[in-house]
């Protein structure tokens, strides 16, 4: 799309604030100082979304109902926050509850995988003739600095072909689309072609640059400069490809995360966030437990729990947790009713999301379901409220608009608002 005007949007204000905050009282020249640049980096806000694909059961995680007909076989255990209990399947995570907040009153009114996932990624219901950008694209647009060689929205998927999904960015423009990291493998085309050694690589880029300089001595435009910059960015990104290589981590560290896919992918997430990534989504599959819900949750959450706690710990010890918004979400929860295959089915009516880190109160709980978990009885929210909450937690006024070709496009669903109770 041509002409992406972003007039009057918060990002101008924010980048200016970030700039003033970081460089207050110092000469501009000091920005070139790498130590200072590092200092600025620690103020950078970033996002980690852990997507439990298929629909994790709220009853086996954040909102257990032990001892009732819908509750299933597992106990609730105390956490590091007095008064908050979660499922016994999450013992490691329970010890990190003081860094997390729970939203227990979600009603997205959607039991379809694709549509539920759309709601959780965009904060909107699917509408004909309208596409909304993913949270990752919005964060890429609002948070990612132009000079960051890493793509603004990195999506670590268990499998798939890799490559870029420009559609995720909808009207924000394709460069804010997601870049898939399929099974942890680096994005496509990060290696220089075979047969081109370092010297030839240098030479061909020098030739390209000298051709461009001759062109620019005659005429230039914002578009032509954006084009040449993508080559500079490409070369910086190629230099960063080591970030995608988790084999450089010690076996002690990779053991802490777990050798399974989710463990490897979370370790990669930590490396990427530490390496300057703005938004990382990592998925754990598959929670779609129509059969044997309880056995499956023991297995799945056994992987999730320890790995997730390790990731929180690493972000915390690196001083990154307070500037990283962490969200654990799913496309929906699972039915309180246990079906005859000991499974639970799709359930968007009363379920939970956990979040923590940047802008989120520590140890807060908002929303409540009834005794059997069949309905929300207090502070019901939907995907729109959650989306507002993420943006506000990151310091943005989620009631503002993006502007595309003079069309005002609300950053989040105007019918919803942030969940203030869990925001700092």
């Amino acid at each position, binding site marked *: 799309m041509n*002409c992406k005007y972003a007039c009057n949007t918060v990002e101008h204000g924010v980048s200016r604030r970030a700039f003033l905050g970081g460089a207050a009282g110092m000469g501009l020249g000091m920005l070139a100082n790498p130590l200072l640049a590092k200092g600025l980096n620690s103020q950078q806000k970033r996002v980690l979304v852990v997507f439990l694909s298929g629909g994790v059961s709220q009853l086996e995680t954040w909102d257990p109902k032990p001892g009732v007909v819908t509750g299933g076989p597992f106990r609730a255990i105390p956490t590091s926050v007095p008064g908050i209990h979660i499922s016994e399947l999450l013992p490691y995570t329970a010890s990190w509850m003081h860094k997390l907040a729970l939203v227990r009153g979600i009603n997205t009114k959607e039991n379809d995988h694709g549509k539920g996932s759309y709601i959780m990624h965009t904060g909107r219901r699917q509408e004909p003739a309208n596409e909304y950008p993913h949270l990752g694209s919005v964060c890429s647009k609002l948070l990612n600095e132009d000079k960051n060689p890493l793509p603004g929205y990195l999506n670590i998927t268990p499998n798939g072909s890799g490559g870029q999904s420009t559609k995720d960015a909808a009207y924000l423009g394709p460069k804010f689309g997601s870049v898939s990291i399929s099974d942890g493998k680096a994005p496509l085309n990060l290696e220089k072609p075979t047969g081109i050694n370092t010297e030839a690589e240098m030479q061909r880029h020098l030739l390209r640059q000298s*051709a461009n300089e001759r062109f620019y001595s005659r005429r230039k435009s914002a578009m032509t400069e954006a084009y040449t910059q993508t080559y500079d960015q490409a070369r910086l990104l190629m230099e960063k490809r080591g970030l995608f290589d988790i084999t450089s981590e010690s076996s002690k560290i990779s053991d802490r995360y777990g050798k399974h896919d989710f463990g490897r992918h979370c370790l990669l997430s930590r490396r990427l966030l530490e390496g300057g990534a703005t938004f990382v989504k990592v998925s754990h599959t598959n929670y779609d437990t129509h059969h044997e819900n309880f056995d499956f949750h023991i297995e799945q959450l056994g992987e999730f729990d320890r790995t997730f706690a390790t990731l929180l710990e690493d972000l915390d010890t690196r001083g990154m947790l307070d500037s990283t918004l962490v969200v654990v979400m799913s496309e929906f929860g699972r039915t309180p009713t246990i079906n005859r295959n000991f499974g639970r089915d799709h359930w968007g009516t009363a379920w939970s999301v956990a979040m923590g880190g940047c802008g989120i109160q520590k140890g807060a709980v908002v929303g409540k379901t009834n005794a059997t978990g069949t309905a929300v009885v207090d502070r019901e929210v939907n995907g729109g409220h959650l989306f507002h909450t993420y943006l506000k937690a990151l310091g943005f006024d989620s009631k503002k608009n993006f502007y595309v070709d003079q069309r005002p496009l609300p950053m989040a669903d105007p019918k919803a608002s942030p969940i203030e109770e869990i925001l700092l």
Partner: protein
Amino acid sequence: MPYPFSSLKLFASAIVLVICIVSMASGQSLSSRIDTELAKPIADFDKKAAPLCTDLEFIRRATLDLTGTIPTVEQARAFVKNTNANKRAELIDTLLASPAHSWYFAMVLDVTWMERRADKHVPSANWKEFLRNALLANKPYDVLVREILSADGTDPKTRAAAKFYLDREGEPHLITRDISRLFLGVNWQCAQCHDHPKIEEYKQELYYGLFSFFNRSYLFTDAKAKQTVLAEKGDGESTFQSVFDPAKVTKSSTPKLLTRVAINEPKMEKGKEYDVAPTKEIRGVPKFSRRAQIANELARADFSPFARNGANRLWAHLMGRGIVHPLDLEHADNPASHPALLDLLAKEFVQMKFNHRELLGQIAKSKAYQRSSQLPPNLKDPKPEEYLVGAIKALSEEQFAYAVLQASGFTDAERLVLGAKLDEAGLQAKLIPQITPIINALATPAGQAPGYEARVEQALYLSNNTQLQSLISPRKGSLAFRLAEIKEASLFAEELYLGVLTRMPTEDEKKEVVGLFNKKEADKPAIIRDLIWALLTSVEFRFQV
């Protein structure tokens, strides 16, 4: 032998002749009237404006815009040598009449109308063939649009034309939005839920007037024929509320297109709405079809938004921006930069019976199209809508991909392989598998208006993907192959620059090339590879100048 004309006929022809002479005397060609209109708002326009571009710039520009690729080295050299004063106009006519134009413009129309949606019910190949055949026959634009908006997918002869509806899943909101954008030049998307908050003219009632042509339509899959077609119900109102209206007043609309009078809908007796009543297995056919009204309402000579938008889009194709710009955002606060010019183009488009080639040709023959893109020394920051200087336009993905194939000499090599059997279809069969991955690497997302946006993934593809490397590598007839045969450094530089950038190298450029040319013979293949790659990825190749 009887005299072939009766005196009356002779008289009539004489009158026609007189009219022709008068109109030629009073008037100028459309192309020169374009230049007159553009000059009006600016004093001393001709003094301020950039001079016309060089012959080489012109042949590259026109070949790209009218056939989607760049000229061969031979074509470029021959054009420079041609001493005919009228050679630029002749080139335009030749390019427009070539099959390559229809092949290319079918892609342009496909991208404009389908916006790179994935195939759903009508294969892209069939649809492009339909568009191509229409263009080869120079079918008038209004006739083509009527065919598209009339097709429902049931008749095998016109099924391909139904892609516009069918691959939008017959979704009435999507169809409404896209018809408003693509044929009326107004984006009514906001008006689905409320009057546009900033643009007074984009009213919700206008949106639902158009929506009402489609609100009864639905997709029907014939289980036996395994084919999905459009069907329509015989009833169903189109009602709406504004989300801004606290009173939540429900309004309703019948089919009505913008300034046209509302469709006079016959009252149907309840239970007698259908020729074929719909069931799960049977496709409904109402006695009165709302959808069937739209083609004739919209694609007509006396409905000016249609001709204006059509003309504006052809203008933008050549000039890099619309007279109304963006192309789908005409309203009082974003008026045409040259209102009289747009009126003139729209009127002439109707007069020439929506002859798309004719209008493209007239615009391309204007001085405006031929201006150099280099700023004259005394001209500071001209606005693009002043047309004082040639635009720097990003190549479309199709243009870029075809240009890569031509510049690398892949196309030349395939021409050699085809030899005497060379024709456009045979050549395209070789080129299309190669352009597809390049287009995919560069393209905007499905369902969004095409346009240029720089992304790092594109640079990574062009730098590191094996495809470009293999296109560059030497094979009989390719640029690397031809360069390897040249023993003289300055001829080598000329072939390289003419082949990739359609111009002669400057002295500096020659020096750079000669420096590398004189290195060891063993290094030459690598040097040739790197030189071609560097020019293919340079700004000058990615943009039109």
